[in-house]
């Protein structure tokens, strides 16, 4: 199940694990990323908590936890090479995975059509 947030994140839910990244629209708006800071594995977040930071030359942007849960895995490859997020935001540029406190919460996120409408695509 692929979902989106109004903060331009994508969320792929498989069982009770959600993989989170930022959308291509977000990467275009942010520009080339030069630094990514990811949460510690095991860290827990409420929905909307500051989970990660992505930075371009000009600015730092927070990435929020799309749902409540605990971090199970982070993508070290994008820490080593932030440009991967720009190159493949929906694939190799994923940010982190989290175990959801409540899988059903994902239903509250935007579906692809709603997200496309949000960004005027």
């Amino acid at each position, binding site marked *: 199940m692929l979902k989106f947030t109004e903060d331009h994140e994508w969320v792929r839910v498989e069982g009770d694990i959600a993989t989170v990244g930022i959308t291509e629209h977000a990467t275009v708006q942010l*520009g*080339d990323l*030069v*630094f990514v*800071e990811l949460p510690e594995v095991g860290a827990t977040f409420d929905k909307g908590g*500051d989970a990660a*930071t992505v*930075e*371009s*030359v*000009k*600015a*730092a942007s927070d990435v929020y936890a799309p749902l409540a849960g605990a971090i199970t895995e982070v993508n070290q490859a994008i820490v080593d090479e932030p440009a991967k997020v720009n190159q493949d935001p929906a694939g190799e540029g994923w940010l982190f995975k989290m175990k959801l406190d409540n899988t059903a919460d994902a239903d509250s996120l935007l579906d692809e059509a709603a997200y496309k409408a949000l960004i005027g695509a």
Partner: protein
Amino acid sequence: MNETALRQTPLHSLHARLGARFTPFAGYEMPAQFKDGVLKEHLHTRDAAGLFDISHMGALKVVAKNGDMKDAALALEQVAPVDVVNLKAGRQRYAVLTNDAGGVLDDLMIANLGDCFVLVVNAATKEADLAHLQDEIGEDCAIQPMDRLALIALQGPRAEEALSPLAPDIQQMRFMDVRMMEIDGVAMMASRSGYTGEDGFEIAAPIEKVEALCEKLLAQDAVAPIGLGARDSLRLEAGLCLYGADLDTNTTPIEAALEWSIQKARRRGGAREGGFPGDDVILAQLENGAARRRVGLKAEGRAPVRAGAQLYADENGSTPIGVVTSGGFGPTLAAPVAMGYVPAQHATADARLFAEVRGKRLPMIVAATPFAPHRYKRN
């Protein structure tokens, strides 16, 4: 200021056609970036040539009412700690306007064009500068905003190559030369200077001619349009101050490490010692040092440290000792770079400080600027 009140430069429609993403800056709607984005625009300027619209900045023509250039020079020396008397025709130099406390009202270029001086000042301060100059030297000098001119900069190692076909004379110019010349058959003012640390030119062109000039420059492979985002990262790597961030009315030129801009003639024992606002403070600091200094800062880690970050002497210190005034990622260095103010005892190369970023204390090292070597054509 609401968005409808934003002013546009004469190049606004060209920017829009080139795919600019606009941002409000000093009351103008300016291109933050073009299609390539800040990172690639920055690197392109270092590798080839970048074209910048700087028409938001102000140009002021200053002449003595009696027509004597020396009197105009002496008048300008009353408002800035700089030697204007010995600034030869065809040359320009950097200066600051000071207030009575020695604080910086603006930083600017003063160009001697032989029959007048031209001051190029910051966008956000240009109205205040004009009023200040009218108050201080308006009795003896006529000060005229050059409103019919658009300002552009062409910067980078291929700037000379790109501009030469339109103005072969520029090949004879060296860093900080300035002159009136024909560029593509139109009379313009050109200087070999800029705000990137690279070789390059700044051009004041008639408003109705500037778009055609830009299109001819952009038609060349070496030249790409560059927005304010890369302008900021380029000047940061070059260790150049941004007024309003690294300089303000609470900062003296000595605190800002700009003492190189105050020539011997204006210092203690000089031919025209003092005689500018705040001279008591500034001359004393020149001799005894300032309590705090602007320094370059390199991060040990990879996280950019940006303006506003507090600086600490210790990883666990509770009281900040200083603050970052400009900072970000330097694309040429592929590393974070910053500038900030710290107490003099910490303003020594290799001093280790800590910047607070998102609740963490990140180690930073005081480092010489420029971070990216200047590549001016000095000879």
